[in-house]
């Protein structure tokens, strides 16, 4: 149970950074931390104590395996997170191009 709470604490760290920071780069990093926390939690759902990796190999005995389904799910989630991050970076480059700053409190002329 404690590991799930720790994952949630990591998620809250990312949320804190997302809300309080003013630098756009730090906001992107904070959103990445939130995604990592969610991925870690999903992988830990499939964990079994003293389980082996779920791959059949030559000469390997059948034993208790960890669940491969959350791992496959997280692989997709990582790809989507990568796309999100790339889009955030592209938007940040556009904003820096227009306003010459990463500080969101100085990006004001949003109308027109």
């Amino acid at each position, binding site marked *: 149970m404690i590991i799930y709470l720790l994952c949630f604490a990591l998620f809250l760290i990312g949320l804190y950074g997302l809300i309080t920071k003013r630098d756009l780069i730090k906001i992107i990093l904070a959103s990445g931390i939130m995604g990592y926390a969610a991925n870690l939690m999903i992988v830990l759902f499939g964990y079994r104590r003293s389980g082996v990796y779920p791959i059949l190999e030559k000469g390997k005995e059948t034993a208790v395996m960890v669940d491969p389904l959350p791992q496959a799910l997280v692989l997709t989630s990582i790809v989507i997170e*990568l796309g999100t991050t790339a889009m955030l970076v592209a938007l940040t480059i556009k904003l820096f191009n227009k306003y010459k700053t990463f500080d969101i409190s100085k990006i004001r002329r949003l109308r027109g």
Partner: protein
Amino acid sequence: MSEKQGLTVIVKTITRTILAIIFLYGFYIILHGHLSPGGGFGGGVVLALGFLSVLLAYGRPPVQKWLNIPVLHSVESSGPLLYVALGLLGIGAGGAFLLNTLGKGRLFDLWSSGFILPLNVVIGIKVGLSLFLAVWALTEWDPEKGDDI
């Protein structure tokens, strides 16, 4: 190629030396995706990181001379088409989408998974090129020159 662009000569030499090893490792992971951890996505990321190391060490103009970027765009865009074509082979054989029409081979051989190996190769090329081209598109803007994208 001018010495101003990119990083120092040490970084350039080491990048030239290990680039082939990086690509070899990426292709190994792609081709053995059905036997060991890895597969199309992981191997494709390794390939993309090989391209990115060259981009970081040498800068943009030498990479533009080295690679034919429009052709890479075309190859990357044709990846999903190739995947769909491989999937339609199953329907053409009278079964479901992505039905395995190749032989299964012996267990633990390289040729032991039917369609998974060609699909892994397609996914690896697609992932590697699209990751590299995403970063390539992000480096297009030059902070020195300013507001002309």
